[in-house]
């Protein structure tokens, strides 16, 4: 079991690095991804040099998918980072100080957790008509309550430890204790949670663009590509299979890696 689990970073690392290359270098790999060719129209995979065929506008499905990686991945990374920053800041304060801030934050989390994320994200982003970055902002707001809760819990677990007692006895300031002593012990869990959040945000973001929100028309994006492909599923299977597999593989790889990291950090915490 352990030997096989140690393979996880390599198994997940390969697809993730390929996708990272797509994100960073797509403008050089596929400079003409959005070029239309109406005369060609929809073609099946393998026709005329198009490995995955073309869509209604004659765009190459493979090139479009490579170009769509950045829109699918960058937003989710920003969401996970932003929501974890809010989580660390507010969660640490709530966990260490308690009081009305703690109460207020937990009520806010209760309110947001009372509704499915998909539904709130759909209604809010759909009604305010914001573009890509507004969607990112809305999802940060929706993701932060769980992060606040998680950090708050870990901070409270640390507060009872002897080293915090001694720091208090030494007369260190509260801010110093919170951010120099407690935080480093919370960061590993925060990091693995953040990774899991990237996967979750990737799914939510592409779900929204699947519903026609978040990404402008014409911008290459996996979710958008999938929703377009519904109409050509009978003429070009590549248009469905490629973006669907890319989303599933990316989300699964990030999830596996995050899960593996979380296990490792937990084991280390137990050993201590």
């Amino acid at each position, binding site marked *: *079991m352990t030997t096989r689990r140690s393979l996880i970073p390599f198994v997940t690392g390969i697809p993730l690095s390929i996708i990272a290359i797509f994100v960073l270098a797509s403008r050089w790999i596929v400079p003409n991804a959005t070029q239309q060719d109406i005369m060609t129209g929809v073609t099946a995979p393998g026709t005329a040099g198009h490995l995955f065929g073309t869509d209604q506008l004659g765009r190459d499905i493979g090139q479009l998918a490579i170009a769509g990686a950045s829109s699918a991945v960058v937003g989710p990374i920003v969401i996970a980072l932003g929501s974890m920053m809010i989580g660390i800041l507010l969660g640490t304060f709530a966990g260490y100080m308690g009081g009305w801030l703690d109460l207020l934050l937990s009520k806010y989390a*209760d*309110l947001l957790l*009372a*509704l*499915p*994320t*998909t*539904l709130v994200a*759909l*209604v809010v982003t*759909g*009604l*305010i*008509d914001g573009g890509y970055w507004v969607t990112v902002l809305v999802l940060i707001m929706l993701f932060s309550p769980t992060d606040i809760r998680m950090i708050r819990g870990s901070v409270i677990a640390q507060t009872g430890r002897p080293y915090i007692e001694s720091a208090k006895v030494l007369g260190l300031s509260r801010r110093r204790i919170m951010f120099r002593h407690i935080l480093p012990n919370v960061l590993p869990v925060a990091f693995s949670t953040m990774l899991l959040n990237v*996967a*979750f945000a990737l*799914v939510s973001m*592409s*779900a929204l663009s*699947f*519903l*026609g*929100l978040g990404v402008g028309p014409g911008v290459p994006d996996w*979710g958008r590509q*999938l*929703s377009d*492909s*519904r109409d050509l*599923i*009978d003429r070009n*299977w590549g248009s*469905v*299979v490629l*973006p*669907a*597999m890319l*989303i*599933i593989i990316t*989300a*699964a790889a*990030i*999830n*596996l890696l995050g*899960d593996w990291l979380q296990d490792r950090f937990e084991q280390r915490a137990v050993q201590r």
Partner: protein
Amino acid sequence: MDSAHSHRRLTQLLSRGSLTRFIIVRLAATGLLLVVLSFVVFALLHLTPGDPARNLVGVRNVTPELLQSIRDKYHLNDPFLTQYLHWLGNVVQGDFGESIRNNTTVTTLLSDRVLLTLQLAAFSFTLTVLFAVPLGIAAAWRSGSVLDRSVSAASIVGVGAPTYAVGLLLLYVFGLWLDIFPVYGSGDGGFDRWWHLVLPAITLASGLAAMVFKLTRTAVVAELNQDYVAFAQSRGLSHRQIRSLVLRNAMIPVATSLGLVFAFLFGGTILVEVTFALQGIGSLLAGSVTFKDLPVVQAITLLTATVIALTALAVDILYYVVDPRVRKRGMK
């Protein structure tokens, strides 16, 4: 005398840790949550960019008379709170106003579509429970076995896999390639309806099953690590007796979380209904959001929130009744 008695009885009923007190407090909390949510849902009308009256006109020709009649109908010239109370008064009576896109009341629109969504939810919920709970128990029982490892790995993929991607892949493989199941639509009632719902239900169940599997496995593993299991084993209780003990305890958290899973199904139906072109509540919401059909959006959001809040309430009370440990600890 009598009043003193009833007073004592009341204090007893409302004493810390009593069931009545618990139910009253939870009811009040749920009520408060719903009031806050209804306020937010109402505010959507004003948070949407543009003049609310114009938004409510939709694609009809904007004439000053029409705008005026809409302002009168929705009391848009009144102060915000009065508007809200008016709206809430109608909502409580089941009147969500009229749909902008379709020329019917929101209530008729919803009642035409709610059955399909309920059928889809019930179908996928049944699939989830039938597959995930037994697998979770088996995986926990033989933790580390091939079965455990493969299903656990599959569940990590399943939790992360987006429903619409899975749905479209299933649609392609079983709908078009193998041509077993119908591709689009909801069938003409009876068996045909269920036949049309097979692929959507499997799609929706795949993500949920992964979640429920993980949950069941964790619950059973936690129970197996309890001291009483080691004690029962050393006392020589049979495998079957121990299993029934463990399962009875482990199923409490599983059963309660299943309630919440059912409630959250309504979030998942949005994507599945859009993927398979099913005319349910979820696809109605997606369409209404892009069309800015606010009365419909408000109605569906509030109804979903109410269903979830009431389920959570029921689950909490059930948990409290079933698990004596929670009762002893009292309310948090």
